[in-house]
């Protein structure tokens, strides 16, 4: 029996448990680049059209942050560039999958059950890594084949696909390390997602610096997201970058195994501390309990958004100056894409939409916390006291509204303050950016509504609200720019949020969204009042 005995059997267990989820996200991520191919060939059929698109897009900083550097105007380069944000999703999914099959299992006590069989110490870690990396490899090869099938050059397609694979592998390895650190899966996820967030910021900063030809262009090289880009699909592939990724994966996996070998079952590198012997005087209502459960994740999210807001706000002004130097053609094109307003506003507007999406995910996450209270059995003990079930759900509902609201305020205020200080106009920029952030709230709350409606009617599917948020984002983002039919674009909730920066305030869509959110919450609560508890 060696250190990995039983890995094969555990691989089958992981595959069995993820038989729906894994193929679904692999297939989804494979399809997106193919959609880009047909969208680009449809919207920009000639070389001249693509060249024009290239010239107008290459200087748009918001694009650079989201997608990376645009190297040229060939169809392949455009598709690879536009697929740049997919690496964020590949990284996130790989990270979460590994943690789901390691720390989550351990926290739930299932690792103990499995570990007592003829399965050795590192088998679960190995199985989780192998399955996740295997899925990323399938994703990379399938994407490459699909793109080759679309008539794109084989080498570039392979580089693009393997870029996804490499990113997935590195984040899977990061996940395997973070899973060793904390006793709770939530903490491991939070650390992993923070690493991903820092990677996104570093790549964005590095790429902008590279574009400008000044500043820390090397920052992109600090992140696995930058390596996928550094492979340069369709524009002189640099295969050696894969070796860099492979070396990092090997090092991180070895670190995870070493950490796992040093610790006891159920423990982490950070040990749980003792708590008070009795509850403080305030912990005496469902609302107080909900605050206790929500405050940790809520505060860290709000602080994180404030930091990102500061970075975005600080970048905005210099960006505007840079873009002003970039020529009339670029300015004209930006006006066509991002609507009226200054160049700075055209950078900030998509940032506000991203803020909306992120806060929508926070709202869904907060609703999931309520659902997990039910699923894990804690709600049962609580509801055997005189606490009414609607009051219990309502006390969590407060935080599904409040958390995203604070996040929006923190981001808007931080961005407005940083941008205002930069331009010497705090009094003007702070309220302007704050209100541009605040108008996202009705769209965000709409997702609270969707999550609550699911909680009341189809409690097993609450996490499906994430899919609704991401799809809504994609329709708006991809559809709008690639000139898809307007009705497709209109499916995106965020498309209906008034663009305050350079645009006009529109009360009607905000009222409609708020009313829809309220109606969805009411439907959810009505359903919840009638259904059986707990639904497993």
């Amino acid at each position, binding site marked *: 029996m060696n250190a990995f005995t039983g890995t094969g059997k555990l691989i089958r267990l992981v595959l069995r448990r993820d038989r729906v989820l894994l193929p679904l996200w692999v297939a989804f991520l494979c399809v997106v680049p193919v959609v880009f191919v047909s969208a680009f060939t449809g919207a920009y059929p000639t070389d001249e059209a693509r060249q024009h698109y290239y010239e107008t897009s290459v200087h748009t900083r918001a694009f650079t942050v989201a997608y990376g550097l645009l190297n040229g105007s060939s169809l392949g380069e455009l598709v690879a560039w536009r697929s740049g944000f997919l690496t964020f999703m590949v990284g996130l999914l790989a990270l979460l999958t590994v943690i789901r099959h390691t720390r989550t299992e351990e*926290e739930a006590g299932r690792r103990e059950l499995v570990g007592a069989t003829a399965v050795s110490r590192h088998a679960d870690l190995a199985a989780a890594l192998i399955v996740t990396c295997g899925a990323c490899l399938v994703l990379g090869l399938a994407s490459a084949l699909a793109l080759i099938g679309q008539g794109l050059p084989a080498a570039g397609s392979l580089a693009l696909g393997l870029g996804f694979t490499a990113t997935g592998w590195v984040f899977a390895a990061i996940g395997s390390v973070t899973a060793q650190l904390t*006793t*709770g899966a939530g903490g491991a996820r939070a650390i992993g997602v923070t690493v991903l967030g820092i990677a996104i910021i570093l790549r964005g900063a590095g790429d902008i610096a590279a574009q400008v030809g000044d500043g820390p262009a090397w920052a992109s090289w600090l992140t696995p997201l930058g390596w996928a880009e550094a492979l340069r699909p369709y524009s002189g592939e640099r295969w050696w970058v894969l070796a860099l990724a492979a070396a990092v994966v090997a090092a991180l996996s070895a670190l995870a195994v070493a950490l796992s070998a040093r610790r006891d079952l159920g423990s982490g590198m950070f040990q*749980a*501390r*003792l*708590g*008070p*012997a*009795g*509850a*403080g005087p305030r*912990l*005496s*209502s*469902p609302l107080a*309990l909900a605050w*206790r*459960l929500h405050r*940790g994740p809520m505060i860290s999210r709000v602080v994180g958004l404030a930091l990102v807001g500061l970075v975005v706000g600080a970048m905005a002004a210099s960006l505007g100056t840079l873009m002003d130097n970039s020529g009339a053609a670029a300015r004209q094109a930006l006006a066509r894409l991002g609507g009226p307003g200054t160049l700075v506003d055209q950078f900030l507007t998509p940032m506000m939409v991203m803020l909306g999406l992120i806060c929508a995910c926070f709202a869904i996450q907060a609703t999931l916390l309520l659902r997990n209270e039910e699923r*894990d*059995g*804690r709600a*049962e*003990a*609580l*509801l*055997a*006291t*005189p*606490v*009414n*079930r609607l009051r219990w759900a309502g006390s969590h509902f407060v935080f599904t509204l409040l958390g995203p609201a604070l996040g929006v305020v923190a981001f808007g205020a931080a961005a407005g303050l940083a941008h205002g200080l930069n331009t010497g106009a705090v009094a003007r920029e702070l309220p302007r950016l704050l209100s541009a952030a605040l108008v996202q709230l009705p769209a965000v709350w709409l997702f609270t509504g969707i999550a609550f409606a699911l909680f009341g009617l189809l409690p097993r599917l609450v996490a499906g609200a994430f899919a609704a948020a991401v799809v809504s984002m994609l329709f708006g983002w991809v559809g709008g720019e690639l000139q898809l039919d307007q009705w497709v674009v209109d499916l995106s909730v965020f498309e209906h949020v008034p663009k305050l920066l350079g645009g006009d305030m529109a009360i009607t869509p905000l009222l409609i969204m708020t009313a829809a959110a309220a109606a969805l919450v009411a439907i959810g609560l009505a359903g919840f009042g*009638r259904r*059986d*508890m*707990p639904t497993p």
Partner: protein
Amino acid sequence: MMTETDAITMAGLVKSFGPTQALNGLDLVVRVGEVHGFLGPNGAGKSTTIRILLGLMRPDAGTARLLGGDPWTQTGELHRRLAYVPGDVTLWPNLSGGEAIDLLGRLRGGLNRRRRDELIERFDLDPRRKGRTYSKGNRQKVALVAALASDAELLILDEPTSGLDPLMEEVFRQTVQEVQRAGGRTVLLSSHILSEVEALCDRVTIIRDGRTVESGTMAQLRHLTRTSIDAELAGPADGLAGLPGVHGLRGEGGRVRFSVDAAALDAALRQLTAAGVRSLVSRPPTLEELFLRHYDRASASAGGRHAEAAR
């Protein structure tokens, strides 16, 4: 009809989850002031019954009354008068055990501080540890302390001693006896531990496959048990095989072994003496046999018929 002497009355309860029939005409009556044992194999429907009592689930058919009220519509006011220990206690990972006890107690409308501390002491619980670090037995203790420190008139305990060591099980028994003697409180105790049931319960209800198969006082149930006979005979006792109420008859040489229902004991002994008894060993009936008979699905139908006949 509900009378003042009944804390719980459930009749003809039916509940299904999709294709699974959890309850299939369940009856349960718990009288005020008694400790009522609620028994049945895993998956028999005990937890579903309790969740209906707590107003967490609604039955498809049948009636349920709790402390004179409707468990679904009068949830809040009824819950003021009861305390509950779930079968599988899960705690908030980042709350300490002491915090969980206080929170549940306060939500119920306050708990007896002195009694809380005393129970923590008796159950040897460290209330400072975080929920995620407790073992199953310790989580169980947290829920038990929270429930037993309350002044609730009805305690609903779903397998409360699962995971407790024998010493703590004894503490639990003493505490329930004290609680009941002191306040005349009603206890619904779901358990698989027969000695616990025998020691604590006044009456028991046994359910299987969502149906009540047996209900009565311990004395009545003992009456339903079988005596085991092992006898050496002078001649063949052919009449035994055809006798109703004789089970598991085996004979080799001059020796017979069987178990016999209380009602058929007299007739069986007549058969033996008629054949001539050389030696006789008889083991008294134990409740364990009765329970095992009801738990065993294979002999389920035979056991059920037998019980009917014995009545």
